[in-house]
């Protein structure tokens, strides 16, 4: 039930938001540049996150997922990593600083909605991954072929495979809510206001002002904003106490990039492939003109009958 609903949500969003790019799709995206929209972004201030997991539950409830059996694993963390039906997970880390003081770092992990999405770049299925003009990167499960190439394209280990439907799933940034003017479910549920949602410009401003406050008034000299340029910036940005050490926050990559294999395969490799195909067609054509069509000779070994 949850999954069919999810697919429906995908159609809904398609109908209401303009598409900017489409995976594996020749030619321009239909309707591209017709509608101008502002970039949306989610701001996660890890310095005011209290790890209450309200966002985890809100995500499940909005997206129609229910109980998953979990196991205690020497942590408050619900499970080791996000799963195909658990898209929002707070990662806990007991981090000892150089001065010996302890930090309990809590970071909400989910799809980063990269401006240059590696999953989309890697995806070969026409229309399985779309990026809307507002920046949301969304999987369209009805077009997904379950090849899992998006996993290799993602530097954040986000897309997850559902073995039953053989489709990939991840956070949609609540595209169904955003497209009708609502904030994502996680934002709505956050009790401390560590989560914010709005235009990328506003969120960046808010994040920078908070980082500045942390540097100037709370002694976090390395406080800063995580909005990695390697993926063109992200639709989910973090305020970190120490922006020079994002790995401490449950393995946030310091300088995420789309893997070169994906770039090569979808860039030069694809071009070479296309070229090879073109040469093939040209060769066939030349052959045709030079030698004419292939003639079919009747067989005689069965009495002239075909």
């Amino acid at each position, binding site marked *: 039930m949850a999954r069919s609903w999810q697919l429906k949500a995908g159609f809904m969003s398609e109908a209401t938001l303009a598409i900017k790019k489409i995976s594996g799709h020749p030619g321009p995206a239909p309707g591209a540049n017709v509608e101008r929209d502002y970039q949306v972004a989610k701001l996660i201030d890890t*310095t*005011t996150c*209290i*790890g*209450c*997991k*309200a966002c*985890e*539950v809100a995500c*499940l*409830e909005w997206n129609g997922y*229910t*109980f*998953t*059996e*979990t*196991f*205690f*694993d*020497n*942590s*408050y963390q*619900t499970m080791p990593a996000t799963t195909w039906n658990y898209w929002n997970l707070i990662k806990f880390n*007991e981090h*000892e600083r150089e001065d010996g*003081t*302890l*930090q*309990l*770092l*809590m970071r909400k992990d989910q799809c980063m909605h990269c401006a240059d999405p590696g999953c989309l770049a890697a995806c070969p299925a026409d229309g399985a991954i779309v990026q809307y003009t507002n920046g949301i990167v969304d999987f369209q499960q009805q077009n997904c072929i379950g090849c899992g190439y998006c996993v290799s394209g993602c530097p954040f280990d986000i897309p997850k495979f559902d073995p039953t439907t053989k489709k990939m799933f991840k956070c949609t940034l609540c595209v169904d809510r955003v497209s009708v003017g609502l904030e994502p479910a996680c934002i709505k549920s956050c*009790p*401390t*206001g*560590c989560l914010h949602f709005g235009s990328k410009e506003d969120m960046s401003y808010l994040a920078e002002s*908070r980082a500045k*406050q942390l540097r100037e*008034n*709370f*002694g976090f000299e390395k406080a800063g904003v995580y909005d990695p340029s390697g993926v063109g910036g992200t639709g989910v940005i973090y305020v970190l106490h120490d922006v020079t050490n994002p790995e401490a926050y449950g393995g946030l990559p310091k300088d995420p990039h789309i893997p070169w294999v994906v770039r090569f395969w979808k860039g030069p490799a694809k071009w070479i492939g296309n070229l090879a195909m073109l040469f093939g067609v040209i060769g066939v054509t030349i052959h045709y003109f030079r030698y004419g069509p292939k003639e079919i000779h009747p067989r005689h070994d069965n009495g002239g009958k075909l």
Partner: protein
Amino acid sequence: MTNGWIDIRNTDMMLIMGGNPAENHPCGFKWAIEAKRNRNAKLISVDPRFTRTSATADLFCQIRAGSDIAFLGGIINYAIQNNRIAHDYLVNYTNAAFIVKEGFKLPEDGLYSGFDPQTQTYDRSTWNYEEGNDSGAVVAGHAAPPPATSLPPGAPKPLPPLPGKVGYDLTLQHPRCVFQLLKQQYSRYTPEVVERITGIPKDQFLKAADMFTSVRKDGDMKKVATVIYAVGWTQHSYGTQIIRTAAILQLVMGNVGRAGGGVNALRGHSNIQGATDMGGVFDIWPGYLKVPNPTDSDLATYLKRITPTASKPGPWDSFNYWSNTPKFVVSQLKSFFGDAATKENDFCFNWMPKVDRNYSWAQIWDNMYRGSVKGLLAFGMNGVCIGPDSQKNIEALKKADFLVVGEIYPDETSEFWRSPGITADEMKNIKTTVYRLACAGFAEKDGSMTNSARWLQWKYAAVPTPGECRLDQDIVAQIFLKVRELYQKEGGKFPDPIVKLTWAYSDAKRPPLAELLKELNGKALADLTDPKTQVTIKKGQQLPGFAWLKDDGTTACGNWIYSGCWTEAGNQTARRETGDPSNLGVYQNWAWSWPANRRVLYNRASCDPSGKPWDPSRKQVWWNEGAQTWAGVDVPDFKPDSDPKDHMGPFIMNPEGVGRIFGPLAAFADGPFPEHYEPIESLVVNALHPNQSNNPVVKKFKTDADKYAGPNDGYNVICTTYRLTEHYHYWTKNNPMNVQLIPEPFIEVPVELAQELGIKGNDKIKVTSIRSYYIAKAFVTKRIKPMMVDGKKVYQIGIPIHQGYRGIQEDAGRDARTILNRLTPTIVDPNAYTPEFKGFLVKVEKV
């Protein structure tokens, strides 16, 4: 809370101790975050464990469980030594200048004056002020109380009264003035002593003391600090005194009554404040009226005993609001008994029970264990899990004749007879009849809930009750009606209080809560006219507030502090206006706050003695010279026309009119100032007075189930209990969403202890106290460090309370099905009777 949740956003400094609001009050914690975000407020977190609150703190101190008084006393000492005190506030708004009776002794040896080791009680007659003349000089002592020749059984020994005019010294130099005694008392709590007792290294303690008291740097009065706590403070054998220490600190610093200040208790249930307000404990009636005791032969005697008279410096004024006690009592009796209550029959005062002994929680279970309590009606709580000493409670229930449990899930209490370890044979021998009644959940009821901020907020039922479930109040009403019917039919020894109880609800079997709330608000029983304003309230109309209450039987009011919540203008608790013109988060027209819709208690103290706000940017109330009245964005907690020249004290509920740094006479069972004592089970002797380690008035329980470990019994680890943000008490183990967030019980163990024991994270470990054991997986964490306490290396562990033997995981056989509170001791605070769940001794081993 003296203040409120939203008001926390007005603070400059937060001391969060004995509480973990980020985890246990996450929605309220947003205001702490707002203060940090908008005011650059600092947060100090003091806890035995580094919690998710500590994760957002500017400074964390790991404290040994149960040593809070030493820490807070150390800060009081630091504030006095470094002159970071609010001098004018202290002199004018507290009893710092009052002179204490000769013969009063501070507890250098662990005992205040008047201790009787035989009865383990204090004769508190020296815990009093000297009588003084108008200029403050001490005059000859006032009359001793009349010798009580024959006290009825269970009656407490009467105490002398407070003097009407006290001796005082506004220079605070008199050696027996409260300030000098305070200074002397906490001069012993040096940073070195604090380190020895609490295990907090001296430099870290000094950092915390400096940070907290920095709001009074250089005599500045503008900044404000708040203290926020929860059951980490109450659950000790001296819990009340921990909170007292915080209150004294806040008075010394001038932080009470001010926006962003106060002493703020975070209540653990959505309506636990309401339960307390409504007399949910045995020694108070609704509205904090003291219960009658056997000496109260009639109404007049009772009222004389419980109505205080003003006690203050001669030239000062004291509102002494409790002088209105007779109005509150008589109106409450009228609300109980209606027309049956007349002036001639003392308004049926003698129909009310006179409490002759302790009927607190632990005592009830102890009495059941001893066989004198034969049955229990349990609604809205899971007694077996709550503990302390769950096994004792299970044994007690086995001896009861009957048990009625009103719940929405099958719980441990209603299934005590099949708790783990009970064999089939044993089960046959349990004769207790258990009645399980299907009740309603919170979303299935309407009614008001009173939050920590004293707001009564009306809510509406969201869904109907499923199946044959009934609302709790319907069940109670139907039991009452049946009992009344039996009394009517069969008579009985004392039928009047039952047969003549007012029960005028539109549906007797299903009393609507709206009608109950109206009853609590009170109404006029005759036409009433205010002589000053000539405003008239007609007979039968709802009262506008408690100022209208009368002691002649012309008003009825179920709970005086709730008067004003449902007036002729309708249900004030259902108001939802979001206007906040003051921008201080007052929200005057959102719901309704007791008393009289005041949001910050004692708010007169937010102004200097001349009536001007200490901080003009946080103006709450002020004296309007032109109109000769107090005005404000909040309702002034004061006599509206009292000119500052009259020097009326801002703490109008105290007979002194000022805040009590010294708690005189019967205020506390264990001392007018707080003193550090060790938990009943402790690894160290008291560093201040080794011969008096524990709170001297705390009595151990004496059944064979009650065992207490000494430092040499082999229990070498300090254990504390706590709650997780993912769960709600013993309830959410039935809800899949919560269960998946924290699926199993665990025990938090320091890395170093784990190494010593050879255990890794996720290994099963067994924690044993002298009473019982508990098995769960180890959570090996850096968030609890080993400590040095009085030169001794000490380990602490922490265990969440939430699991039991009924629930999703329990029923699927996925956890050990044990109750944490099997470990905890039955020992209680002598003032509030709260059990000591924090800081008892255990040993830890690998399974």
